């Protein structure tokens, strides 16, 4: 469970995130929408403890990220935007490293976690390949595997389907859906169809502020018959 209270982050004169608050419960898949630069990634970076908020807090399973960031990081799985990984390592070596840092110290425990993550994300054909030789779709899946590796209760995914082809997008979506039964998931996207496809809640942010926090159905009900991108455009009209 994730609880975000009044997060604020300022870069120089620009207030990137301006008092964002929301809650995500277990079983929820929250779609985090907004135009580019609206503060989606910054908010996620604060929840995961990578950035320190100027004010406000985020708690994961009751632990405050500003008080005990290491404990929160242990509970989270995080897929950063563009899925960074060490290019010179093979998929197996990389996931083995993540498993070791995540506390799977014995070789057998580590192997089991790595195999599980590789199985879930269908990486077995490339497990011995170095990450720099992989296509974008596979790289994205490595990022995914890394986030899932320790079977975390909370997943934060920054544009998980970015750069994937339609088939891969579909696959990633069904994977997220299948896992979300007992997890709290936040995913950011700017593909609006994704919201209808997998999310059971939507938050739209614009210029660092939450402008909508509801179910996809009630978002549609705002303007019956209109397409989602029209509603999105109306809500984020101030952000140009």
């Amino acid at each position, binding site marked *: 469970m994730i609880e975000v209270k009044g997060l604020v982050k300022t870069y120089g004169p620009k207030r990137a995130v301006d008092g964002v608050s929301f809650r995500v419960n277990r079983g929820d898949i929250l779609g985090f929408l907004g135009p580019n630069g609206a503060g989606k990634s910054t908010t996620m*970076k604060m929840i*995961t*403890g*990578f950035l320190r908020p100027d004010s406000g807090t985020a708690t994961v399973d009751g632990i405050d990220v500003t008080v005990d960031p*290491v*404990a929160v*990081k*242990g509970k*989270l799985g*995080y897929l*950063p935007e*563009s899925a*960074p*990984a*060490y*290019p*010179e*390592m093979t998929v197996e070596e990389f996931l083995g*490293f*993540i498993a*070791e*840092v*995540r*506390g799977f110290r014995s070789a057998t425990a580590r192997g089991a976690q790595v195999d599980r993550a590789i199985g879930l994300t269908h990486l077995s054909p490339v497990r011995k390949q*170095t990450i720099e030789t992989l296509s974008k779709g596979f790289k994205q899946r490595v990022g995914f595997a*890394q986030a899932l590796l320790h079977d975390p209760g909370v997943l934060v995914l920054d544009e998980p389907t970015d750069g994937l082809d339609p088939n891969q997008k579909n696959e990633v979506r069904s994977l997220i859906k299948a896992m979300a039964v007992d997890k709290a998931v936040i995913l950011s996207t700017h593909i609006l169809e994704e919201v209808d496809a997998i999310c059971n809640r939507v938050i739209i942010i614009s210029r660092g502020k939450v402008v909508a926090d509801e179910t996809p159905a009630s978002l549609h009900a705002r303007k019956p018959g209109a397409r989602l991108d029209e509603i999105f455009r109306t809500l984020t009209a101030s952000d140009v």
Partner: protein
Amino acid sequence: MTQISPIFKREFFGYFRSPVAYVFLVVFSVASIGLAFFVGGFFKANQATMQSYFTFYPWLFLFLIPAAGMRLWSEEKRTGTVELLFTLPITTLEAVLGKFLAAWAFLTLAILLSLPLAGTVAYLGSPDWGVIASTYFGGVLMAGSYLGVCSLTSALTKNQVISFVISVVACLALLFLGWSVFSEVLGSIFPVWLVDLLSNFSFITHFDAFTKGIIDPKDVVFFLSLMGFTLFLNVVALER
């Protein structure tokens, strides 16, 4: 602190996953031994010592250690893996120490590759092993201090070239303060006590005693405290 070990392993073996390690080790060995043979007069001196080998260390380190250290943090920043690393359950100090110790171990390996030269000296004459051992010890300590400076400058930028240039300039300053030629220039301007004080901050001043077979606690403390100080600033720079 148990989290240092996976970071250390990844970093240390990371050198050998790319050509960097092999290029570095070959260049280091060729340059250091070449200097001893052709500039230092290793054979001409007709003495069973490694003096002509170690005397170039402060100058050799000036370029080679920034070359090895420049990528430590700037590469993580450029490729975005820094976000991955700092959303894993580790503290900044553990990450800094893990990476630093790995790079230091790698440099120690480069230094120890010159051991056949010690064998040559022993074959040709009967060297003072105490002096050789203390010089190796001093060399490893001095390498750590250079590396501390480079690790710090690397954390300040995502550009490896800038990181390299700043490291060289910073190390050059620390070197020059104790270089006799430069001290004489300073001595003609400033009072002796000030020149002595300044030269106490130099690598050369503190390395000299080791090459004479003296392990003076104040020299050891100098190198260790320089490492501690730069690594402390390194943590501060990353948490900024």
